[in-house]
């Protein structure tokens, strides 16, 4: 096994540990009095965690020069999608018993559900185009542009979390702060880049 494959295996293993522990606790009846609520909340938080990890690859590469991290970014993004799927499936099958009408009413009457659905919907094209073949077919530039969708997805995800919380917004706030920092970093790099190129133009004139 070469190094990249080993590290991918390592990520796979670690990314599945939370699900494994969830399943193990569930099997032992240790998810508390309301296992479904616990499972829903935990998979939702895990989705956000993987969105955050995916978003931190670029800053880590730029700040520390860890360029090879790029090899693992799509995989990490796919885990966000994976936990998002588990979250949505849990909600629609186990919470709503696949009652389409009840789900439609939920989306209509409860904005936080509509926002969650929207964020998940935006994750789908990113997951679908995550293969090497799709990058080639779309062309690197268009692919990169499409995948900027992860920014609004991250924001919507935090808003979704914030809105379901009754009054203690500590954790949604923490995720909001993290997303804010990761997005602000990109904005700053961009502004700096613009300023630098302007300076370059001025000096060359």
């Amino acid at each position, binding site marked *: 096994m070469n190094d990249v494959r080993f590290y991918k295996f390592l990520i796979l293993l670690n990314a599945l540990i939370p699900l494994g522990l969830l399943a193990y606790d569930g099997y032992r009846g240790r998810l508390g009095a309301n296992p479904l609520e616990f499972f829903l909340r935990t998979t939702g938080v895990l989705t956000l965690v993987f969105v955050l990890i995916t978003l931190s690859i670029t800053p880590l590469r730029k700040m520390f020069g860890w360029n090879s991290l790029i090899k693992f970014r799509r995989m990490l993004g796919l885990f966000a999608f994976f936990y998002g799927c588990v979250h949505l499936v849990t909600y629609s099958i186990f919470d709503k018993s696949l009652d389409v009408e009840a789900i439609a009413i939920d989306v209509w009457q*409860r904005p936080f559900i509509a926002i969650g659905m929207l964020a998940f919907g935006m994750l789908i094209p990113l997951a679908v185009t995550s293969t090497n073949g799709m990058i080639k077919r779309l062309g690197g530039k268009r692919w990169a542009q499409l995948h900027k969708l992860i920014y609004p997805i991250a924001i919507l995800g935090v808003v979704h979390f914030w809105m379901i919380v009754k009054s*203690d917004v500590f954790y949604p706030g923490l995720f909001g702060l993290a997303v804010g920092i990761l997005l602000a970093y990109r904005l700053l790099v961009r502004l700096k880049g613009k300023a630098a190129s302007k300076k370059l133009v001025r000096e060359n004139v």
Partner: protein
Amino acid sequence: MANDKILSSEITPEHVYLNRRNFIRTGLVAGTTLATGLTYRLFNPSAPGQPVTSDISDLKRADIPPAGDPPNSFADITNYNNFYEFSTDKLGVAKKAEALVTRPWTVEVGGLVQTPRTFDIGELLRFPQEERIYRFRCVEAWSMVIPWVGFPLKTLLGLVEPLGNTTHVAFETLYEEKVMQSSFSAGIDFPYVEGLRLDEALHPLTILATGLYGRQMPNQNGAPIRLVVPWKYGFKSIKSIVKITLTDREPPATWNIAAPDEYGFYSNVNPNVRHPRWSQATERRIGETGRRETLLFNGYADEVANLYAGMDLSKYF
């Protein structure tokens, strides 16, 4: 340069190199999985506790018929609690509430009454206690069946003799900052306050509960004495009461202050009044997999609907 030359003795033999790589990899697998697992456990501890409280003797069965469904387990009732003074995590309240000291304890009853009095908890526990098996419906769309022990609030109010102009009853929970170290971002103001209309307070279903499952109230469920109003959302049933005040106006209620458009003063269980977070049309009974239809007034319509005759329940929600 001679230094460039690597002696064959200096070359790491392949098997050693591979061994070292395998060693490092094994270490990485073990180290990272352990770290990930421990991180997960840090945020999701799994060990429910069992509170130990003493038995209540001379328990009388209530003449009010019990809820038709079997009660939830003692473990579920005592490990899934909303008690924001301690924690906003329902699974975390039990542990943190261990710090609550419930002796000595007094309940000050005053306001618009003939004879204001401060009751010692010992005296309240000597009132004739009866078991009331009630459905309990949380606004978060989960529900339980709980075998409470207690006595009608009416008994207590009778002793202080409300004045003729009294219209409402206000309640207040203990606020002891030293032990009630909830998240600084709990998002509601303490002390927790609640209120009822006088006729609601005097209703025979309304009780002051001093225990459950035939034992004294566990801390996390609102020891040593709490209100239980079974036809209203759970947050109306205020815990760990230290003060009861009779008044001639609608008293403030904590969740109503925090989000008046979501939690009305009445907060009667009503499947027809929407809520922006949880569907109130159905509920998850703890211990069941599917969802049940939520009943108007939590199934106590026959007993309490007349209290609200002529009122628009979607306006006075």
